[in-house]
């Protein structure tokens, strides 16, 4: 589990090319590395540093700032139960207790079989549908304890593998800009004039 694969390297280079400064691509690339292995390995960070031209310490500094990046393998399904106010008001703590009992691990832990990692999450932007949770960042809304049991059953049985990919895979659709359609990165070094359409005339 290490450096980016050749296939991902192609994607990485495409991502890097979109930005005026290479370092900007760091977070998307870290996601790519996490998609590849389910977590971000040391070698991956070294590789990303080489790709965007920064030291591995800088990659590490950026990566550890963000909560979604994991530096050690975790369960296939990351169950994030929101505990912020709206969800807490609607019983998120009880849901968490139930989940802890059901999975047999404390929040933050991973089940023995490596299937589930249970975690506290902060507000996930589904407050009116409290309590809510995310499995690998896919929403489940107004989750009762029974819903949670069903969800875990389904995940264990592999029924949801279509909808919910393994941890690390975020969006299943990637932006792709066809070379003939893209304008290309606009970097401060190369541009010092007003854009063409700002000439006081209509563009069409």
């Amino acid at each position, binding site marked *: 589990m290490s450096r980016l694969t050749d296939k991902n390297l192609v994607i990485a280079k495409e991502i890097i090319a979109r930005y005026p400064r290479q370092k900007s691509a760091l977070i998307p690339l870290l996601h790519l590395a996490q998609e590849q292995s389910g977590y971000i390995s040391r070698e991956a*960070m070294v590789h990303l540093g080489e790709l965007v031209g920064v*030291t591995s*310490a800088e990659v*590490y*500094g*950026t990566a*550890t*700032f963000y*909560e979604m990046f994991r530096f050690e393998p975790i369960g296939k399904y990351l169950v994030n139960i929101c505990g912020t106010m709206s969800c807490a008001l609607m019983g998120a703590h009880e849901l968490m207790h139930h989940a802890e009992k059901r999975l047999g691990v404390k929040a933050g832990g991973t089940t023995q079989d490596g299937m589930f990692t249970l975690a506290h999450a902060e507000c996930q932007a589904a407050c009116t549908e409290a309590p809510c949770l995310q499995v690998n960042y896919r929403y489940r809304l107004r989750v009762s304890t029974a819903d949670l049991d069903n969800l875990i059953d389904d995940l264990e049985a592999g029924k949801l593998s279509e909808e919910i990919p393994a941890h690390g895979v975020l969006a299943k659709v990637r932006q792709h800009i066809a070379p003939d359609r893209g304008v290309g990165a606009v970097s401060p070094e190369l541009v010092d004039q007003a854009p063409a359409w700002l000439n006081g005339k209509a563009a069409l």
Partner: protein
Amino acid sequence: MTIVDPTAENIVVDPNVVNITINDKPVLARKGELIIAAADRTDDFIPRFCYHPRMSSVGMCRQCLVEVETPRGPMMVVSCMTPVAEGQIVRTATDTVKKAQEGVLELLLANHPLDCPVCDKGGECPLQDQAFSHGPGESRFVEEKRHYEKPIAISEIVYLDRERCILCDRCTRFADEVAGDPLISFTSRGNDTQVLTFPDEPFSSYFSGNTVQICPVGALTAKPYRFKARPWDIEQTESTCTSCSVGCRIVVQSSRDELVRFQGVDIDPVNWGWLCDRGRYNFESVNSTERLIAPLIKSDSGLATTSWSIALESAARIIRTALASGADSVAILGGARGTNEDAFAWASLADQLGITQRDSQLGDGLTPEIFNLEQATIDQTCAASTIILLSPDLKEELPVLYLRVRDAAQKRKSRILEFTPRDSGLTPYAWRSVSFEPGRQAQVVRETLETQEIQEQIRRGEVVVVLGRANLAENESFTLHALGEIFHAIPNAKVLPVLRRGNVRGAVAVGLTPQKNSGDAIDILTKAAAGKIECLILLGSDPLADVADSDLVARAFNRTRSVISIDTFINSSNRNADVVLPAAAFAEKTGTTTNLEGRISNVTQQITPRGTCRPDWMIATELGLSLGIDLGVSSLDELHQKMTSNIPEFSSCANNPIINSDGVLMVSEASATISRASVVLVDRNSYSYRLIVSRTMYDNAQSTTTSPSLVGIITKSAIYVNPLDLARIGVVDGTNIRVGIADKSIVLPVNAHSGVYRGTAWLPYNHTTVDVRPLLDITSDVVDVRIEQLH
């Protein structure tokens, strides 16, 4: 800045002056200056932790909050990020401000361990001081503090204690902004934020010691100083570092007559407060137990301790005997290590004895003529619109000059045009980096300077050439030819000569350089090898280890009848000397030194010389007396007076008190020119690699090998070639190979290095394990080597 008197007639208002009020007192400030910087010129101290005048502001610690009057009433701002504005009214000690400052301090101390008694910073700690001056007095934090593993070694030299860290961003900013080695970074977030390196990767910056110096708490401490002393039992004096020729201003600190620490002093013209790790930590060699502490004299069982009078008598006898066969049979090598006064005393003695063969360089520099070209100072270099680098890797050889030049390039003040045989520390910051194969630089320079783009850049303003020897495996004349091409294209270019040895410029100025057309060090050694030298006087030099052509030196030493060495250690050259006189080391003597730009500043004695060591100048006068020559000086002051009146270059420092701080520039006149010359060079055989030999920061230098903290960092010998070349010869990265010239070869590991260009090979000089000098032949123009797999 002009002070504006409103009552005066014809007021000329300086547009760059801003009038502000700090605590009801009028203060003049520069446009764009920060409030905190303006307040620093008044008596009102604004507490701060993250602010550092030599780095960009981040406004992180929030300690420097002050109130500024606005139309909507007083507003709290951080003074380290707020620029002054005309008519601004600033208050630094209102109740609100005090409350905020006390609050921030209480919060900073909340998780800060109170282990001040065991902390190296205790007693000189800004957090401690400001907790007393601006803190609330008591903490209400009853919770358990944050805990991390106590100090972790993040490099060979630096320890990090994360519990003590207050996250001011100074070290990380320094590493990123100033040193360009962002190998430490904040990690995690919020209350868990900590400074760390990448896991298992050391903070191997050449400038890591500066982070220790600027850390406002004891989070970063240095191994060489760890638990050695406490601030209150330290005595200190200002001095100038002589580890290389940059001449950084330092404070030398000692405790109970032992050196414990060097700290950088912020002076504008040179080092801005920064030091390199070698200069900062090689003081350990002064304390070394291997130091020479008494005169030695050759006996049947090797060198034996003797008294000064006997040693001086024997030395005098040897010299007298040698002089009997003519002044040409005595030669002096070295002298760049000591002070100007040391060198002057020796030069005077040599003058009186008629010895013309002297050289303070050892064939690895450039002709002293370059000091007679139109000179630029470091400041002028960094203000030039174009800096042409025709020099060794500044990061490796003159580290703090590298910081200055890098800063100029980073802040877009200057553009660097680099001519280099391999990627240097400044290559990433160069506007254009032009590579050349050793020997072809003149041609490459000519072609480059002819391009239109470069010509446009050159016309933008001042051009300064940083000139030095980039490659020991080529004839020095190639560099001068390339310089000739530059002068041809840019006749008014100035030169910043970068010869590496500490006081080489001073030594040359006083006359420790070939006199009356006698040859340089290599000529002297060649003569010695031919048996024409009777007595060789080594002034702190070790030709057997230092001169590139080991074969030549070995032959020279074999044929020289007697050797007199004045040194601080036993080394390869004086191991078999006839007389060894122990010299006082740095910080054991007072005098002046001259840096590469010709800045004369003082070096100061801080500790008693070990044993019976004496300063070189004293040895010279006493040896003179033994030889019946009176140099006419009985004290250092007299010597200094005599030097400043006799040597025109030093007239500027006669009775000049400034040599105690910023120093004074020596008087120099541009009398020399270097013109274009044609060079003919043999082509390289396509199977061989043209050799580049240069120095790195940590090598087998005496001061490094005798400093326990540095000795572990010295790199092991290896040869570096381009990865593509490595693939071509089918050798695995890191394996041992044989590198050979006509009849000699050495075996050492080979490493792939993309900063080495195809067809060349880089061989760092004077590293441990393998001596690379057998490959170097001073008589040949360039060296082409074969690289073969071992079988």
